[in-house]
Structures are given as C-alpha cells and as structure tokens.
C-alpha cells in the first residue's frame, strides 16, 4: 500500500467521493429539517391562515372581487365562537413606499391588531409594543422589522423617529425581533406594522361596499387542540356567516401554516434522499474499486504470500493481513471523504446560503459504512490469498 501511493489514492477515490457525498447530503437534509423547524417556530405554532379564495361560476373564474370578502366581523366571530381559539387577528396588507429624509424603501406594510404579536409570538426588541389604545385611536404609529429598520435608519436608533408612509407621517414606536426567512423564501423582517385602524383610514380597504374588509385572518389555537377540528370549525362558521349554500363553490381558503412548511421539508428531504442513494451507489462502486485493486495486489504478491506461508503463517493470518489492508484503504478513504464532505458542506452553506447541519452521527455512519465496504469487498481477495498453496505461490514469478 505504501509502495503504490498513487494507486492507493485512486482506489480510495470512489470511497472518498461516496463518503463526501453522503456527508454533504445528510448535512443538507438535516439543514433543511432544521430550517423548516426554525421557520415553523418563527411563524408561531398552532396557526391557521384564512384567506378569501376566488369565486367560480362553472369554469369561469370571476376574480377575487366577486368573492365574499373576509371582514373584521369574521375575525371577532372566530375568536369568540370557536372553542380552543386564542386569538383571531384581522390583517390588511399592501406594498408601500417608505421615506426617511432622503432614503426610500419599497416594502410590505401590514395593518394588524395587538393580538397579532401574540399569534406570531413576535416580541419587540426596542421601543414599545402596539397597544389597544393605538388601535382605538387609529394612531399613526409603526413597528419596524429589522430589515426595514436597517434600510431606513442604518445603525441609528429609530425609536421616536418620524417615518413617511406614502407621504403620511408615522412615529416609529419600536423594532421587532429578527424572524429570518419564511418557508417561502421571503424576508419576514422586511415589514412595517401599523394598527389596522390606521392602515384602513390612511390607505386600504375603505371601499364603500365593504368598509370592514380584511385580507387575511390569522388564527392561533391553544396547545392540545386539534388543527383539523379547528380548521373545520372555522370553515363551517365562515360558510354560515357568508351564507354559502351547500354545494356552492369554495370561496374561502383555510390552511395550516405548519403543515405547509412541512410539505416544503418533505420535498427537500425527498431530494436529499435521492442524492443519498446516488452517493451510496458511489460507495459501492468505490468498494468494487477496492476489490479490484486488492485482487491485483494479491496476484502481484503471490510470492510474498508463499514465503509467509512457508515460514509458518496460517490461512487466517494471511486473510487478516489482506482484510486489514482493504479496510485500511476504505477507512482512509472514508476519513478523507468526511473531511472533504465537511468542507464541501461548509462551502455550500456559505456560498449558496443554504443551511447545513453537520452532525456526528452522519459522519460516524459514513465512516462505518466505508469500513463495511472494506470488509465486504476485501473479503473475497483476502480469502483468495489465504487459500493459496505455499508451493504454488512460491513458484510464481
């Protein structure tokens, strides 16, 4: 093995690539799981999202204008009538232009009630929270997400500063904690939150036909309450409130946000499982490479084996010797593969902004798999060596 450095290195290559691929895939898979878990946490647990769907007549899409809209009354009804619901928060949103002095920023404006922060489990990092008094007075106050705050104020303290939203002045009362990326990849911190009453008065939803329209109702239910039951109850209540006839086309969408996130995770895991399979194939190919080179080695060293037998080596001794050699090759390949895999995973994490989690069990699994490959594919050549007859082995040139 020492005598053929290049040959050993090439032999190990298959194992190196296989193990590195296994480590990378498992790191990405674990990273995806972690990320989704973190996103579910950032979303807030036990959440249901209610949005107006679009109405249909036959196969003709009538557009959202024709759909019965959600109203603040729906939110109140959900919160008061459905057992297990902690809060039901009405939401309005719109894109808006934000101006501070000379700096401009396009971002998401959201009109919410103080309950929103309970539902999303979203704490204020600096300044004060939104209170019901702000809601009642329709006060021109705004809470900023960290991204919005950085874009508009840099490192300066924004609390108390004046901010123009579509040219209407608002006072910054606080900065929210960082939430990070959402499951769908958008920045949850690129947001400004104002009381829904202020949002309605200044910008949106003031149509005469539906003065209490909201874009979304976020429902938080208590721990231990079934998500399905709550969703069904919300669904039934809203059909009843909107006087939808049985059999009439669905116009309201009720969805479980955590579930949506888990679907994302399942997709990522399916991909990483597929790649893991490919990586395993590479390991097997690497094992065949080891078997091949060990067979060559046994042939090359037949005379040496004969000599060893002549001075008293038993079959077992020869078997062990060659098996150890094969396992050493596989293990060295495994360890090199792990190092390369960790580096590759770290590089992917850094450059592709993909969360990777390298855990010890993945590393140990990959290395022990490599050792097993060594045993499995080294056994046949080693047995071949051990079964040589001393006199025949010595006679070969």
């Amino acid at each position, binding site marked *: 093995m020492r005598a053929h450095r290049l040959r050993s290195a090439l032999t190990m290559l298959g194992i190196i690539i296989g193990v590195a691929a296994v480590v990378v895939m498992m790191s990405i898979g674990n990273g995806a799981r972690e990320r989704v878990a973190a996103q579910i946490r950032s979303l807030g647990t036990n959440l249901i999202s209610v949005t107006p769907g679009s109405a249909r007549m036959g196969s003709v899409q009538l557009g959202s204008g024709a759909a019965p809209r959600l109203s603040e009354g729906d939110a109140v009804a959900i919160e008061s009538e459905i057992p297990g619901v902690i809060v039901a928060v009405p939401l309005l949103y719109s894109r808006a232009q934000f101006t501070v002095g000379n700096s401009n920023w396009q971002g998401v404006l959201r009109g919410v009630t103080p309950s929103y922060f309970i539902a999303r489990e979203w704490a204020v990092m600096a300044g004060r929270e939104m209170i019901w008094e702000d809601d009642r007075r329709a006060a021109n106050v705004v809470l900023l997400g960290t991204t919005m705050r950085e874009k508009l104020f840099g490192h300066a303290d924004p609390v108390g500063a004046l901010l123009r939203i579509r040219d209407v002045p608002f006072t910054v009362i606080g900065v929210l904690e960082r939430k990070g990326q959402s499951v769908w990849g958008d920045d949850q911190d690129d947001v400004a939150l104002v009381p829904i009453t202020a949002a309605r008065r200044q910008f949106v939803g003031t149509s005469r036909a539906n003065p209490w329209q909201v874009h979304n109702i976020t429902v938080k239910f208590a721990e231990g309450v079934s998500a399905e039951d709550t969703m069904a109850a919300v669904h039934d209540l809203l059909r009843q409130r909107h006087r939808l006839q049985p059999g009439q086309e669905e116009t309201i969408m009720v969805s479980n946000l955590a579930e949506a996130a888990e679907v994302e995770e399942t997709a990522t895991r399916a991909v990483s499982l597929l790649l893991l399979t490919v990586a395993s194939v590479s390991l097997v190919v690497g094992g065949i490479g080891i078997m091949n080179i060990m067979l060559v080695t046994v042939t090359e060293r037949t*005379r040496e084996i004969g*000599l060893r037998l*002549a*001075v*008293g*080596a*038993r*079959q077992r001794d020869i078997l062990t010797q060659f098996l150890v050699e094969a396992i050493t090759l596989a293990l060295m390949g495994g360890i090199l593969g792990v190092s390369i895999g960790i580096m590759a995973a770290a590089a992917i994490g850094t450059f592709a902004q993909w969360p990777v989690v390298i855990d010890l069990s993945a590393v140990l699994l990959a290395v022990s798999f490599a050792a097993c490959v060594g045993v499995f594919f080294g056994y046949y050549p080693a047995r071949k060596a051990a079964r040589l007859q*001393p006199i025949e082995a*010595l006679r070969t040139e």
Partner: protein
Amino acid sequence: MVLIAVEALRHSYRIGGGLVWALDGISLNIEQGDFVAVMGASGSGKSTFMNILGCLDRPAEGSYRLDGIDVGRLRQDALATIRNRSIGFVFQSFNLLPRTSALENVELPLVYRRMRAAERRRRALSLLEKFGLADRASHTPAELSGGQQQRVAIARALVTEPLVLLADEPTGALDSQTGQEIMAIFRRLNGEGLTIVLVTHEPEVAANAGRIVTFRDGRMVADHPATQHAWHSGSQGRLSLVYNAQ
C-alpha cells in the same frame, strides 16, 4: 536418532493429459545432526522431495515422519505450525520481503508465533550478529549484496530454532566465492549440531555435506558418505549452540 523418516514416497504432477511421477518410491532416513546433500539433474525430483520435506507440498503416496510425527496426515493449520516451529527453509532466490528491513525479515516467522516484539527483536538481532550483519539490520534487501541477503535468509530460517534446516540450491544465485562463504556457514551450523538437508546440482557444493544422495527420474540411485569431508561432528542436540550466548 532418526529425525526424518521417508517411506515409499511418491508424488506426481499432471502435465498435459498424463501423470508424471516426480517422485517414484523414495525411502530415506536422516539422522539428527546429519548434513545431507541431495544431488541430481533438473527434473530428477530433488526439488519436489525438498518441498515435501519442508511441508510446502504433500506427498501423493507414502509416509513422511518428522521427529516422529506423520506430517502427511496433518491439516493446513497444523502444517503451518510445523513449518513455523520445526523447519527452517532457505531458498535459491532468498525470498526476502522487499522494502522490509533485514531485521524485520528475520523476525517474520516469530510474528506468526505471536511472540512479543521485544523478544522477537532480541532473537533476530542475536542471529544477525552471529552472521556478521548486525550493522545491516535496518537495510532493506535491495541495499544488500547477494551473499548478505542469503545470510539474512539463513538467519530467518534459524530464528525459530528449527529441528532441520532445508536449503534448496542456496548457492544457485551466488558467485562461487560467495557460495563458498555460505557453505562455510552451513558447515559451521552442522558443527553446532544442526541437521541440514541441501539440494544442489554442483558436486563442489555437495562435497561440503557428510552424506550425498543422488536422485534420477524420481528414484534414489546413490547414497554414500562424503568421506573426504568429515565436517559434521555428529554432536546431538537441537541447535543448542546458536543461542549459547543467552
């Protein structure tokens, strides 16, 4: 005392379609302390005989008793033990492990005896010293001359304190001057009481032995003492002098 007792030994090879009897009824006793040279042309069966004595090959027919043990009936592992403990083999082409130091080469048989490294080293070094190779212990075979390599091989054969030293054309790959030096070592070892069986086709080499047997076509055709040399002292005992420094 009879150390090697061979009775009606036959051995054949399959060449082409037919059987060729390389050994065709050899009966021979070798006493402890003997120095026997086996002579014969190539194809006379002398090497086959040697391989059977060395337990590297099994006879097709007949019996071979080494120190009272019927070797022909032993299993592979038991044969390995015999090769390891009772027989020292010296080859024409030395058969040292390349890229391995002289010391490690000499230690090799003891490795298969599961001996502690320190004890192995001590024994191997004392033998290398005996053959004037103490300063070459760390050299690999490629760094040694032919004569030095053969001396390392002899040290390897003796490190297990065998009952008998078997040498198959030990001078065949050496020039005559070096060959004579090797034969001098053999005479000295026989003088210390070691039983030696040597295969050669050179009469000058065979002349070092105390007894010369001649093979032809698988049969023994002559067996006589080499009276002109009375090297072997006939002293009994098993290589006791090799380790008398202990």
